[in-house]
């Protein structure tokens, strides 16, 4: 990319085109960043990023902690024992919450992108996503909450 809007075209390519095009354009630093404001979409956008970063950071750690199993039962059981802790359970609930939110919101994004006519119903889709998320969280909080209480 050379700072033009190469690779992008059409009436619905504009914002992303400008964003991506200016990534390599040193002269237009004011254009950087894609924080936007204005409607509900800003929150789902922000939560998607935050949960995504949280999940990949956990994944880095999770690959390493799982790999410890290659060093035998003594080493691995020491690792898993560290998870039997109420504070870790709280973090675990946060992780499950992030995974559920990121997946449902990602599904919403994918549906809108693969079926652009759905974009006209973006508010209804956004509210449906939040509703589904809340409905999923009820049993998750109940079950994981009980697991944590059993530990105390």
């Amino acid at each position, binding site marked *: 990319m050379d700072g033009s809007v190469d*690779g*992008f*075209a*059409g*009436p*619905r*390519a*504009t914002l*992303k085109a*400008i964003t991506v095009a200016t*990534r*390599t354009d*040193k002269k237009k*630093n*004011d*254009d*950087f*960043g*894609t924080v*936007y*404001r*204005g*409607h509900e979409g800003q929150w789902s956008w922000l939560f998607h*990023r935050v949960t*995504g*970063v949280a999940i*990949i950071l956990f*994944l*880095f750690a999770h*690959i*390493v902690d*799982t*790999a410890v*199993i*290659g060093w*035998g*039962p003594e080493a*691995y059981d020491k690792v*898993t024992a560290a*998870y039997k802790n109420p504070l870790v359970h709280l973090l*675990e609930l946060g*992780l*499950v919450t992030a*995974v*559920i939110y990121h*997946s449902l919101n*990602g*599904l919403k994004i*994918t549906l*809108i*992108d*693969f079926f*652009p006519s759905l*974009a*006209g119903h*973006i508010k209804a889709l956004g509210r449906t996503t939040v509703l589904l998320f809340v409905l999923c969280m009820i*049993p998750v909080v109940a*079950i*994981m909450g009980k*697991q944590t209480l059993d530990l105390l």
Partner: protein
Amino acid sequence: MATTIDRSQPSAGAPEPQRDMRGGRERPIGGFELWAWLFMRISGLVLLVLAVGHTLIMHLPSGGVDRVDFQFVAARWGSPFWRTWDWMMLTLALIHGINGLRNITLDYVRKPGMRFALNMAYYVLGFTLLILGTVIVVTFDPTKWGSGA
């Protein structure tokens, strides 16, 4: 160009014009960025089954994650089905997550050198973890420790 937003002028607190979403969202039309865009959505759909399924299976039934220990994993990886599941999940989630980090970095890091350094750090870390995870998932053999599960 129905909805062009001129971002070269600082808007000084003025609200951004409401975008017309009826034509769909913006997306790259070609090159690497389009493949990355497509990969994020396809892998996302697969991870909806693999990663969400894994999360729910591991954290909700029969006492959740507290039941996981060496014997548990040894029994689980006794099945090629779960080894395949875990390896596919490892690969897709790592690439999906690393590309997510790359996107965020391109959005916020202005200095080209820093951007390059960060992206390279993601790639090296991702590649290392992919190798580590793959070696463990493929070669793990519980009988090495006398516990043939």
